[in-house]
């Protein structure tokens, strides 16, 4: 068997504790954070060096064995779900920050570096790494690059792609290429930008050159409570219309507020139907002037309460509630699905109203937490996997939400990627020709479709088993979502 040849050859240079082959060792790697899907790989390689990754990819290419790169496995779309009998190349140990140049404002990192570790390393120089997914304490830069991950602060400075300047990549056939570099600009096609968001289908990122930004001198964070989601949505529209460019604008609905309060006591007003967080950042004089303007605009939007973060601790508390919202909502229900649709910002109200109706029709609770400034919705669909048919109803509801986003002119994913979960909706979002061209581009780099086979494209192989409940790594106490 090709697998045996591959594993035997790997075993010659990799010690057994880093080449996992026993079923019990493989269990924690059978899913990512979308636990509804599960599949068993032939082996997991805990790579310790870039050379090992390259060697493994070359062997997979030679033996035609599919492989999946894996960071921390926090993908919410089944992106890092293993391929049945394929190889998982785990990158967490490639976690060195190779170079940090404050004058050039860049950091060169290995793919297993944790998102937050970059900002920590940059902090002594007054710099930080802007993209801040809620999972930033555990997710890796490699995973962020593969998914073009976002976060609460994408409004002003964009998603991961806007912060990746260069890449060293091993292509699916084992060729190592350097894309982009340390300059903000390049010439010729933007290969770096093309690689970011390719969901592991274009090979594995070995080194990533990140752009750092100076830490804003001042933040002003406003928390406004409303009697309806619509009123909060209207407030967002008027803030934008006033010409303000906040760093973040986030909305949470009643269910999300309740859950966040129960989990972390963020001090949110519990009886509000919607909560709006707006954060301004930048030079103090400019921020204070914008802040005065912001307060006027928000005041005119008739919030039931309006408060302002008094200090850093207060600001941290407001964000803690927001960033723990997913897992907090998870506590309200045995299982949940997170969706990640995008609608034009002016259609937020319409989208939320429609989601509420769907929730009633399917008799499933939906909590809404979203990046309002970007029109990026995160409905959390609560269900109980032990109740017959609930998972199917939850998936049907999720599908209707995606369909709605497409109809409103938006997208099926803003930041969580297509993965396994949203493959079948690609055909609704893109025309046949668009998908054909994407598939040809993929085959030009990976004729055997080995890299992350079965993801992103609608006709990929179906994953094997299904399960619910917490992530296997969570059960083992190795991963937590706070």
């Amino acid at each position, binding site marked *: 068997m090709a697998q045996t040849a591959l594993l035997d050859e790997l075993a010659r240079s990799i010690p057994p504790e880093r080449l996992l082959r026993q079923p019990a060792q493989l269990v924690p790697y059978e899913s990512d954070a979308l636990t509804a899907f599960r599949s068993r790989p032939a082996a997991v390689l805990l790579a310790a060096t870039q050379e090992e990754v390259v060697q493994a990819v070359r062997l997979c290419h030679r033996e035609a064995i599919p492989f999946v790169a894996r960071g921390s496995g926090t993908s919410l779309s089944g992106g890092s779900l293993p391929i049945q009998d394929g190889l998982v190349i785990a990158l967490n140990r490639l976690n060195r920050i190779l170079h940090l140049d404050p004058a050039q404002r860049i950091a060169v990192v290995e793919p297993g570096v944790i998102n937050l570790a970059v900002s920590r390393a940059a902090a002594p120089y007054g710099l930080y790494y802007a993209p801040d997914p809620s999972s930033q304490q555990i997710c890796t830069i490699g995973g962020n690059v593969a998914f073009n991950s976002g976060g609460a602060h994408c409004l002003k400075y964009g998603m991961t792609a806007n912060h990746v300047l260069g890449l060293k990549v091993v292509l699916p056939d084992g060729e190592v290429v350097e894309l982009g*570099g340390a300059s903000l600009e390049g010439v010729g096609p933007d290969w770096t930008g*093309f690689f970011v968001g390719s969901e592991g289908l274009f090979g594995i990122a070995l080194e990533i050159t990140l752009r750092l930004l*100076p830490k804003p001198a001042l933040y002003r964070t406003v928390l406004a409570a409303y009697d309806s989601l619509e009123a909060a949505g209207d407030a967002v529209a008027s803030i934008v219309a006033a010409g303000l460019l906040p760093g973040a604008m986030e909305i949470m609905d009643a269910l999300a507020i309740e859950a966040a309060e129960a989990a972390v006591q963020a001090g949110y007003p519990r009886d509000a139907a919607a909560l709006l967080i707006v954060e301004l950042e930048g030079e103090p004089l400019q921020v204070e*002037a914008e802040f005065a303007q912001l307060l006027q605009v928000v005041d005119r939007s008739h919030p039931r309460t309006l408060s302002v973060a008094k200090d850093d601790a207060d600001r941290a508390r407001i964000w803690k509630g927001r960033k723990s919202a997913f897992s907090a909502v998870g506590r309200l229900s045995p299982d949940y699905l997170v969706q990640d649709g995008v609608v*034009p910002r002016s259609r937020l109200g319409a989208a939320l109203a429609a989601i509420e109706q769907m929730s009633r029709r399917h008799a499933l609770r939906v909590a809404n937490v979203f990046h309002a400034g970007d029109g990026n919705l995160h409905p959390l669909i609560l269900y109980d996997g032990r109740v017959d048919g609930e998972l199917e109803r939850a998936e049907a509801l999720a599908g209707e939400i995606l369909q709605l986003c497409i109809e409103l002119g938006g*997208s099926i994913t803003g930041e969580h990627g297509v993965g396994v979960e949203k493959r079948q909706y690609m055909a609704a979002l893109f025309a046949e*020709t668009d998908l054909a061209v994407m598939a040809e*581009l993929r085959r030009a780099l990976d004729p055997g479709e080995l890299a992350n086979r079965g993801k992103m494209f609608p006709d990929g192989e179906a994953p094997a088993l299904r399960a619910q409940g917490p992530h296997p790594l969570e059960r083992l106490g190795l991963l937590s979502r706070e």
Partner: protein
Amino acid sequence: MSAPTVVAPTSNQELQEAVCACSHLAVRGGGSKPGLSPEQPAPVTLDLRLLSGLLEYDPGEFTFTARAGTPLKTVAATLAEHGQYLPFDPPWVDQGATLGGTVAAGLSGSGRYRYGGVRDFLLGVRFVDGQGRLVRGGGKVVKNAAGFDLPKLLVGSLGRLGVLAEVTFKVFPQPEQYTTLRLPQPSLEAALATLATLARSSFDLEALEWVEEEGCPVLYLRQGGLAAPLAERQAALRSWLGGGEPLAAADEVRFWHTARELAWVPEGSLCAKVPLRLEQVAALDALLSAYGAPRRYSAGAAWAWVAWPAAAAELHRALSRLQLGGLLLKGQAPSPLLGIRSAPTLAERIKGVLDPFNRFPPLG
């Protein structure tokens, strides 16, 4: 040799037909960057200027979709009516540069410093590939992670991978007012040190341009935002820097207009863009001063604009020696890509998919 035929499609369908009908063709927005067109004129030139006009623009949405041949000037004027702009300051607006040409050339201007370049504001594209297929990539919303990022692939593709038909951009609210501080530097080393210190400071500069004046580097620091606190912000910057002269309002507008239009490049001179890291500036500057080449370092010296007084081939060789890459915008050379290349094998494979019959000029 017979003069090249010019075809000017007026619809996406005509554009597809035109591509299918020709075995070799080149795309032209109209020609503000003639250095990017092939040296040997292709038998057919596709003139995109009739594929022009805004298709969708809802100011509340802060995005627009336009045909690729739309002049930047038209776009800027429409956006300005609603207090909005393209923050990356694309060059050659007055010379008639188009949206498609700007994307295909991958060109950003001084505003690149603050919020990002053309790559960061392009959300979606429709383009005709070398097989005549009309392909869509990206989307019309500000955040979208579905499918491969074809828009980014076309940024800098120089009309070699496909013909852009439509582009969707996100835009930002334009600062109410700007001010600029002029900061002469005693030496190149001093200028580099100032850039390095500024990089770590929390001053929000819109742009940071380095100009050679009478043999000495002079930095221009642009601030923008609400009008009321701007004078005080500039004073704070000035005291932090320990110097600098504020430009009078009219001079400030003129300075950045000259920068955007590259109006300082001598008539008839070659013009190239050379991306840089800070530690590469000194070596390039030594080369350029040896040739007496006028130059500016843009966006905190993220790249140099070079007015080259000699042959393009000489610049190509010199850049190769310095391990730098460049893009020839005005002037003629076998390829507009000068100096070292990035990812040549990857380029070939992608070109093979989008332009298998080599209808468009070669990428290399």
